[in-house]
Structures are given as C-alpha cells and as structure tokens.
C-alpha cells in the first residue's frame, strides 16, 4: 500500500471536523469537559495512525478506519446535540466529554467492577466447559446413552437459566457463588449439547480411517473425536458466552455489591446518568474484548477448517 493509500482517508477528515466543532461556543451552561473529549479523540487518532502503518492487509485497514470514522462522527453529532446546541435534556444526555471525564475519575472503581464481573464469568464458563466437554465426549461416543442424553439436555437447555437465580439463592451462601452457579448452568447445556452433537455427527469415514490405523480407545477419543467435534463445541461455547454476559449483568443488577451491572443500576437509581452511560459503554467494550479474544482462540484452534 502506498503512503497516500494509508493516510488520505475520510476518517482523518472526520477527526478534524470533530475538533473544529469544539471551537463553536458552548450553548450548554453545564460543565462539559471538552478537554476530556479532545484528549480521547486525539488518543484514538494517534492509535489509528499507528494502526494504519502497522496493518498489512488492505481490508483490515479499511475496517479499522471505518470503525474509527463512525466513532468520530457519533462524537461530533453527540457533542453538537448536547454541548453546542443544547437540544437534549442535560440530565439524561450528558455531554461526551463528561462521560470520558467520569470514566477517568472512576477508573479504579470501574476496574474493580470489571474484575469482579469477569472473575465470575470466567469461573462459571471454564468450570462448565471443563465438565461439559469430557462428559459430552463420553456420552456422545456411547451412542445409546447419547440418544437419551440429547433429549435430557434439550429439556434443561430450554429452561432460561435466569430462573435458576431464586433457587440458587436458596441453595448457595453468597451472591458470587450463585452467579457462578447460574453462569455454569448457562454455559454447561449449550456446550454439552454442542459436544454431543459434534461427536455424534463425526463423519463415519473419519472414524473408519482412525479404526484402520488401530488408534487405541483413549487416543481415539482425544486425538480424533475431540478435534473432529471442535467446530460444534465452539458453537456451544459461543452461545454459552453470550448468554453468560446477559445473565451476569442482570444478576448483578438484582442483588450484587459490585460488578458492572451493579455499577449501572446503582447510579441510575441516583439519577446519575453520566455514570450510567459510562457503565453501559464500558460493558460494551468489555464484552467485545472478551468475545474478540475468544474468537482468536477459536480461529487458532480451527485454522484447519476453511
């Protein structure tokens, strides 16, 4: 790619527009923290420029620039609607700079909450996968047990896991353990069902190929059946992961003392919508980051599949 290709992009024009808009007089009488907005925009622009030079593929460069361009455009509109023309209720719609300033101010609190939420999710998710995959392999491989187990898992996975919460509260001592329990259930059934269906649908020709190689039984299960079912296992994991976040944040809004869902609910109860929006954005970013990392793992393990 030529330098021109890398640098002459609409995204940078949108960045300039966002900065120019900040030169307009403020109509809003509230504290709008324009400095925080500019700091964020400049930081993002620097990262984007660095990314423009590091990216090798044309498509991923365009994607990066498009996404950042969108963010700049949204920030421009947001800032015009609030700070510059005061079109919206300032209590419900804080200026963008205010949200960034709030994030900077609350960052320690926010990190503690993220850590709490992620800790619960990871624990429940990993525990569920660690039980569901071997069990699914074993039951799926024993076709007779597998047939019955398919129906059982269909029944249990049809129960929305959120309804386990009251029972979990009766069963377990702390909010954390209830959350881990619910996420465990939310992940367990899709991963278990995915593994079983993966095992039961392994191409007979692959199994024959392994049989004529005289692969011993344990190796058959872990070197042949497991990798052959991996695509379906990942389908289950993805489903479990996305349900887990919904559940966890909902649960945190009901009864937690920390966590991202708690942060959002707590401050919205006080009418602090700056913090509410800050929390929403942070949750979005965290979920995207976790999903991205998980997808990278999946890509790596399934790179044989095209």
């Amino acid at each position, binding site marked *: 790619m030529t330098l021109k290709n890398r640098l002459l992009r609409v995204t940078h024009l949108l960045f300039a527009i966002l900065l120019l808009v900040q030169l307009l007089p403020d109509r809003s009488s509230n504290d709008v923290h324009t400095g925080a907005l500019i700091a964020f925009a400049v930081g993002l622009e620097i990262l984007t420029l660095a990314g423009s030079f590091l990216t090798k593929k044309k498509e991923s460069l365009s994607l990066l620039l498009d996404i950042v361009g969108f963010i700049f455009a949204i920030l421009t509109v947001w800032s015009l609607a609030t700070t510059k023309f005061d079109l919206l209720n300032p209590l419900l719609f804080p200026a963008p700079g205010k949200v960034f300033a709030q994030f900077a101010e609350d960052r320690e609190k926010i990190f503690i909450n993220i850590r709490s939420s992620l800790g619960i999710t990871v624990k429940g998710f990993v525990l569920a996968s660690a039980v569901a995959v071997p069990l699914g392999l074993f039951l799926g491989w024993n076709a007779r047990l597998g047939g019955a187990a398919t129906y059982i898992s269909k029944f249990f996975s049809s129960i929305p896991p959120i309804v386990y919460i009251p029972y979990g509260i009766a069963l377990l001592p702390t909010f954390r353990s209830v959350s881990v329990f619910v996420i465990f259930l939310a992940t367990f059934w899709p991963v278990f069902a995915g593994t079983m269906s993966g095992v039961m649908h392994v191409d007979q*020709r*692959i199994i*024959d*190929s392994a*049989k*004529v*190689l005289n692969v011993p039984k344990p190796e058959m299960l872990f*070197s042949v059946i497991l990798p052959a079912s991996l695509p379906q296992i990942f389908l289950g994991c993805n489903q479990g992961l996305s349900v887990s976040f919904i559940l966890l944040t909902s649960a945190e809004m009901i009864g937690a003392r920390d966590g991202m869902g708690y942060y959002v609910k707590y401050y919205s109860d006080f009418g602090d919508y700056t913090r509410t929006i800050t929390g929403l954005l942070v949750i979005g970013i965290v979920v995207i980051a976790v999903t991205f990392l998980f997808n990278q793992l999946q890509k790596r393990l399934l790179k044989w*599949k095209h």
Partner: protein
Amino acid sequence: MTANKIEISHLSVNYTERGRQFNALHDVSFGVGTGEFVSVIGASGCGKSTLLSVLEGLYQAAEGSVTINGTPLHGTGRERGVVFQHYSLFPWMTTRSNIAFGIKQARHELSRRERYQIADEFLGKVGLEGFGKKYPSQLSGGMQQRAAIARALAMNTDILLMDEPFSAIDAKNRVILQELLLSLWEGDSPEHRKTVVFVTHDIDEAILLSDKIVVLTAHPGTVNEIVRVPFDRPRNRAELIKTDEYGKFRNRLLSLLYQDVANRIGGEEVVI
C-alpha cells in the same frame, strides 16, 4: 504351493438396508500371494468395496473366512495399511502430522523425532516436499491422495489395501498418481514388495498396476474370473498401451465385465 499372504475362502456378506437384506458377496474365494499386486474390478454395486471393508476389518462376513499369514482375520490390524477414496487424512492435522500419526500407530518403538523424520522422507517420495505444514483442506484432491499413500507406505505394513484411491481425481492427475504408485511399488525389490489389494472400476488402471485381476459380477457379488496380467515389469504405460497384446487383453477384461451386464439385460433386472 507356497502359502498365500491373504486367503479368502467362501466369503459371503449380507447387507441390511432399510430393513431389507441384500447378499452383497456370495461365495467369494481367491488368494493373494506375498508381494503380489491384486486388483478387484467390477461394475458398481458388485460388492468390491464391501470385500475391502472385510479385509480392512471394518465389516464382518456372514460366512466363510479370511486368513492373513494363516491366522484368521479379526478386526483391524497393524499389518494392514489403508488408503480410502476420501478422508484418509485427518483434516485437523497437517500433512506431516497425519503421516507421523499413522507411523505412531503402526510402529510404537519409534521416537517422535524419528517419526517426523520418516514422515518428511515419505513426503519427498510422493513429491510433496514443502507441503508438510499444510492442512489437507489446503491441498488439491490429488495431493491429499499422495499424502494418504505416503502415510500408508510410511507405516511400513506388509499389506496395503486401497479402496478406489484415485476415483475422485481428474483424469490427468489420476494417470500421474497411478504411475507414482507403480514406481514406488516396483521400486522395492520383488521379495520386499508389499502385498496390495486394490479396488477400482478403471480397467486400464487395473492392468497397469496388477499382477492379477479379480473380476466380480454383481447381485450378488461373485467371482466371475481371475485373470493373470501377462505383462513384464517394470511397466511403462506409454509403451504398453501401444501393443496389440494390451488391446486384446483389455478387450477380454471388458467382455468379462460386460458379459455380466449383458446377462442381466437378458434377464429381468437391469441396474446401471
């Protein structure tokens, strides 16, 4: 008479499909000598692949017996290597790992390093050097079959069972693969050659490669005739097909194959 490596006697196989029972093979008997290359040909549905499944140990015969080195066949075995038409290789392993994995199953005594060394050596033999790190999905069908052959050979089994290994390959590459297999097999000195049972529906392929051809008739699959291929080795396709003997021999095989079809057209049922 020296004992055959593989002895098939009075073999019958029944198939159940949608509740109906078929007699896939009926009273099939023939022997395969040590170091002999035997092809089994026949129209589709004649049970030739079923016969190979029995030899592979994947399918149980209803009657009759198969012995290998004099002992009755029981399930799959370490002395037999197999190349299928599809999915001989595991899609999640690189070509190299696929071969090394096969070697591991057949030859426990080798270390990991030795296994990969042998894998690379055989990749070279089938003309796939530099493709060891590729996954099967990144290779063409012909290259996948090369790798499958490399694995079967690297496992160094006495017996090689090949179930229409080149049927899914385009005509040009099929010829190349046949010649590769021929040169690899003939490359061993006669006393070290592997015993091969090769299933195909391609007459030219069978003539080029085999010492002996077993012609099956369909419904139920029975042995029509066993024909010895009268051409000296090493063989050269280009020269061989020019000779009159080749044409005559080919016609004879064709008539054996179509005699079956003709009989059935004269009868009640025609299956094409």
